[in-house]
C-alpha cells in the first residue's frame, strides 16, 4: 500500500474509535470502551509505522506524496480538496502524536477508571487525536484550518470535562476564546495566501511563493505574522499564553496529551511546515524567534514560584515550546522538531507522575502540602525523577541532546543570534532550577499525612470532595474526578505507560547524537532543503562544546536547587523576603491576566453593554417598533372606510362606477 493509503488509515482509526465509543456509550462496558479507545490509537500508530517504512523505502528527495479523496470546491478559481500530504515532517509528527497518545490512552485506562464520564472521555480523546492528525496530515490550508478548529474544540471539551466545576468551564471558555483569536490570524493568512497565489494546496503554494514574493515584501510578512498569531495562540506563547495554566483544570491525561505533547506543538509544526514563507519574510521569523525567547524566559521565571504542581509543569511546557519556536524560527528546523519529540516524552511522563501524586493527595495540587513521596510511592518517584532529569537536560538524557542542539545552531548562525544562545542557556539554568525545585520539595523529606497514610496502610487518602480553588462542593455525578483515585503503584496500565515513557525520556535522545548517528536530522533535512538556513550546520566540535556547556549548566542548576531546597530549608523563604517585589511580580504571572482584562475584556464588555442599552433600545427597537407603529396607524386609517354603513359602501360603489365611466369617456373622446 502506498504511504498515502496508510495516511488515510491513520486518520480513520481514531475517528472510528471516537464515533463508536461516543454513540455506544450506553451499551459498551467501561473496560471495553477503554480498550477500544486505546486500540484505535494503537492501530493508528501501527499505520504510522507502516507509513514510515514505506517512506524509508523511497529515495530521500522524493519522499513527499499528496493524495485526495474528493473535491470540496472546484469552481470560480477555487480548488479545495480533501487531501493529505505525506512527507517526512508529517510522518514524524504522526508517529510522535500517535505514539505518545497510545501511551496516554493506556494511562487513562487506569487513571480514569472510576470516573462517571469514562466513555465521554475516551470519545473526546480519540476525537482529539483524530483532529491533531488531520491538522498534521492536511495537504492544503483549508483542511489545516479544519483540523486546527477541531483541535481547539477538542481542547475545550476536554478542559471543561468535569463540567460542573465552575473553574473548569471558565478555563475551557478562556482557552477557546484565545484560540479563536489565533484562528482569525490563521484564516486571514489563508485568505491572503489565496489572494496572492491563487491556491490553497501546500505543494502549489510552496512552489509559487519564492517566485511571487520578494524578500520581506509586506504581503508575505503580513501572511507570516498572521500565521504567527495562530501559532502563538495554539502554542501558548506570549501574549496569548494565559489560557495554558488555567487549562490544567482538565484531567491529568488531558494535560499530558494536549497541553504537553501534541496540541501546543501545533504552532511549532505550522511554522516548520510554512518555513518557505518564513524564509521569504525574515522579519517575521525574527519576531517569532524573539517572542519564543521572551516566552522561554518569562515562563521560566514564573515556574520558579508556582506552588500548584500542574501549573508549574504547564509553565515549563510554555518555556520549552519557546525553545521549539526559537528553533524553527531561526532555521534549526530538525533540531526544533527533535526537541518537540523529546519534550513530548518527558513532559507527558512528568504530567503522569504528577497525576499519580495528586491522586494520592486526594486532588490536592499544592506542593506546599506535599512532601516525602519518595518513600511512599517508589515507582512514581522514579518516573518523576527520569522526567525531571530529561527536562533539566541532565547529560545524556533526551532533553540534553535536543535542547542543546537548538542552541548550537544559534551559535553557528552567529551575529545577532548569539543572543539566543546566551539567553537560551540562562533559560536552561532556570529550567533545571525549577524542575528540581519541584522534585526536591515533593519527593524527599518527612512524609506528609497523605504519604504517611500510603506508607502505613497502602490506602489512598480519601478527602471530602470539594474544589480546592473555589471551595465549592464537587458534583459527584459528573463534575468530579471520581470518588476513587488511582495511583501508578496500584494500576498496571499506568505503570506500563510511564515505564515506556521513562525509557524514552532517558534514552530517546540517543538517536540524534552529534557526529555519531544523526537519524532525525538526516530524516527531516530533505523537507527543509529549500531553505537557505538549512545550509548552516554546526560542526561536530561546536556541537559537543555546546553540549558540554549545557551539561555544566544543568548540573549547576540541579545543585542550586539542591542547596536551596534540601540543604538549607529556610533559604527560599529568606530569598522571598529579600526579593519581595520580584516575587510578587512572578507570583502574579507578570500581570498578563490583569493586562488582558484591562485592555481587552473590559472594553469588550463596555461595548456590549453600550450595544445592549443604547443601540439595541434606541436604534433597533426604535426601528422595529417604529415600523410597527407606522403599519398600525396606517391600518387604523384604512379601517375608517369600513364604517358598517351599507349606504356608505353603496356610495363608494357609485363613485367608482362614475369614475370608471369618466375614464372611458375621456379616453374615447
Amino acid at each position: 500500500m502506498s504511504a498515502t493509503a496508510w495516511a488515510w488509515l491513520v486518520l480513520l482509526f481514531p475517528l472510528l474509535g471516537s464515533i463508536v465509543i461516543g454513540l455506544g456509550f450506553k451499551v459498551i462496558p467501561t473496560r471495553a470502551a477503554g480498550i477500544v479507545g486505546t486500540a484505535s490509537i494503537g492501530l493508528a500508530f501501527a499505520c504510522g509505522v507502516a507509513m514510515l517504512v514505506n517512506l524509508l523505502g523511497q529515495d530521500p528527495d522524493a519522499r513527499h506524496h499528496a493524495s485526495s479523496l474528493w473535491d470540496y470546491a472546484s469552481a470560480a478559481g477555487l480548488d479545495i480538496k480533501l487531501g493529505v500530504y505525506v512527507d517526512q515532517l508529517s510522518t514524524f509528527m504522526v508517529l510522535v502524536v500517535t505514539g505518545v497518545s497510545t501511551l496516554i490512552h493506556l494511562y487513562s485506562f487506569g487513571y480514569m477508571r472510576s470516573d462517571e464520564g469514562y466513555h465521554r472521555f475516551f470519545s473526546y480523546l480519540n476525537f482529539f487525536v483524530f483532529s491533531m492528525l488531520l491538522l498534521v496530515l492536511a495537504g492544503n490550508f483549508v483542511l489545516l484550518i479544519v483540523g486546527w478548529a477541531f483541535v481547539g474544540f477538542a481542547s475545550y471539551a476536554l478542559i471543561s470535562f468535569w463540567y460542573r466545576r465552575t473553574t473548569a468551564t471558565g478555563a475551557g471558555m478562556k482557552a477557546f476564546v484565545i484560540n479563536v483569536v489565533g484562528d482569525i490570524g490563521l484564516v486571514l493568512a489563508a485568505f491572503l495566501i489565496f489572494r496572492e497565489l491563487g491556491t490553497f494546496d501546500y505543494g502549489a503554494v510552496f512552489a509559487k511563493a519564492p517566485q511571487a514574493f520578494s524578500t520581506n515584501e509586506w504581503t508575505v510578512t503580513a501572511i507570516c505574522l498572521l500565521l504567527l498569531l495562530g501559532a502563538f495562540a495554539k502554542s501558548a506563547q506570549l501574549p496569548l499564553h494565559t489560557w495554558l495554566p488555567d487549562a490544567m483544570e482538565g484531567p491529568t491525561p488531558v494535560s499530558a496529551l494536549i497541553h504537553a505533547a501534541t496540541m501546543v506543538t501545533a504552532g511549532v509544526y505550522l511554522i516548520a511546515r510554512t518555513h518557505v514563507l518564513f524564509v521569504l519574510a525574515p522579519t517575521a521569523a525574527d519576531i517569532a524567534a524573539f517572542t519564543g525567547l521572551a516566552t522561554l524566559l518569562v515562563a521560566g521565571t514564573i515556574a520558579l514560584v508556582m506552588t500548584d504542581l500542574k501549573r508549574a509543569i504547564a509553565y515549563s511546557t510554555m518555556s520549552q515550546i519557546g525553545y521549539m519556536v526559537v528553533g524553527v524560527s531561526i532555521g534549526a528546523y530538525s533540531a526544533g522538531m527533535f526537541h518537540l519529540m523529546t519534550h513530548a516524552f518527558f513532559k507527558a511522563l512528568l504530567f503522569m507522575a504528577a497525576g499519580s501524586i495528586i491522586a494520592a493527595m486526594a486532588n490536592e495540587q499544592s506542593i506546599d502540602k506535599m512532601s516525602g513521596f519518595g518513600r511512599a510511592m517508589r515507582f512514581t518517584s522514579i518516573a518523576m525523577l527520569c522526567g525531571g532529569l530529561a527536562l533539566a537536560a541532565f547529560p545524556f538524557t533526551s532533553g540534553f541532546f535536543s535542547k542543546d542542539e537548538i542552541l548550537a545552531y544559534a551559535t553557528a548562525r552567529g551575529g545577532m543570534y548569539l543572543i539566543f544562545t546566551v539567553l537560551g542557556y540562562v533559560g536552561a539554568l532556570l529550567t533545571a532550577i525549577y524542575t528540581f525545585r519541584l522534585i526536591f520539595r515533593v519527593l524527599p523529606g518527612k512524609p506528609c499525612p497523605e504519604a504517611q497514610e500510603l506508607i502505613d496502610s497502602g490506602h489512598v487518602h480519601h478527602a471530602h470532595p470539594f474544589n480546592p480553588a473555589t471551595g465549592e462542593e464537587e458534583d459527584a455525578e459528573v463534575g468530579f474526578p471520581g470518588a476513587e483515585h488511582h495511583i501508578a503503584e496500584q494500576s498496571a496500565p499506568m505503570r506500563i505507560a510511564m515505564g515506556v515513557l521513562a525509557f524514552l525520556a532517558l534514552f530517546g535522545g540517543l538517536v540524534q547524537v552529534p557526529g555519531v548517528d544523526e537519524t532525525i536530522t538526516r530524516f527531516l533535512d530533505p523537507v527543509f532543503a529549500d531553505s537557505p538556513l538549512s545550509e548552516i550546520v554546526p560542526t561536530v566540535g561546536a556541537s559537543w562544546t555546546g553540549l558540554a556547556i549545557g551539561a555544566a549548566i544543568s548540573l549547576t542548576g540541579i545543585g542550586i536547587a539542591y542547596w536551596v531546597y534540601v540543604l538549607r530549608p529556610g533559604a527560599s523563604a529568606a530569598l522571598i523576603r529579600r526579593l519581595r517585589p520580584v516575587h510578587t511580580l512572578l507570583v502574579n504571572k507578570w500581570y498578563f491576566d490583569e493586562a488582558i482584562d484591562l485592555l481587552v475584556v473590559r472594553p469588550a464588555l463596555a461595548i456590549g453593554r453600550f450595544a445592549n442599552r443604547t443601540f439595541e433600545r434606541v436604534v433597533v427597537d426604535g426601528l422595529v417598533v417604529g415600523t410597527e407603529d407606522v403599519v398600525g396607524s396606517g391600518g387604523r386609517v384604512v379601517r375608517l372606510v369600513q364604517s358598517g354603513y351599507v349606504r356608505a359602501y353603496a356610495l363608494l360603489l357609485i363613485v367608482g362606477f362614475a369614475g370608471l365611466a369618466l375614464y372611458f369617456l375621456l379616453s374615447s373622446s
Partner: protein
Amino acid sequence: MEAVLFFAAALGALGGAVGVVALRNPFYGVLALIVHLFSLAVLFLLLTAAFVAAAQVVVYAGAVMVLYVFVVAYVGGDTEPTFDPIPGQRFLAPLLGAALFIELSIAVLGSSLLALDTDGSNVKVGFGDPAGIGRLLLERFLLPFEASSILLLLAAVGAVVLAARRDEPGAGTPVPTSTGTPGESRPGEVGTGVPAGDPS
C-alpha cells in the same frame, strides 16, 4: 302623436321614480313605483315591444308589486329619522346622481354613439309579439331560459328558508307539566297520571 305619448309616459315614469325616492311613507313609495311601471309599459308599447309591455304589467306590476304591498302591510312603514349618521351622504348623493346622469348623457349624445341618432329600423308587423320571443327563448336562448327557471326555484326556496318561523322558547304549544293530583287530566290531553293497580 308618438311624441306626445312619449312625453306623457316619460313624465309619468319620472314622476313615479321621484316619488319612490322622495315619499316618506314606503306604502306611498310602492304606489309610486306602480305608476312608474305602468308608464314604462306604455314606453315599451311605443317601442313595438308588445309582449314585454304585457309582461311588465302582468308580472311586474301585477305580481311583484303585490308582493311588495303584502310585505309593506305586514311590516308597516315607519317614517325614517331625519338625522343622517354618515357624514356627507346627504350632500354627496344628489351630486353623484347628477354626475352619473351627465356622464351617461354625454356618452349617449356627445360621444361617438352616432348610431343612436336614428329612429330605429323599419320593423315589420309582428315585431315584438309572443311568437317571435317564444321562438328565440326556446331555440336560441334555451340555456338562459333554463337557467332563469333554476334561479326562480332557488329564489323561492331561499325565501322560504329565510323567512321561516323558528321555534323559540315561550312560543309554540305549551309543554305539559305533571303538577296536580295523579289521574287528573287536562282537557284534550292524554292522562299523565298512573292509576292504581296499573302494571308498569
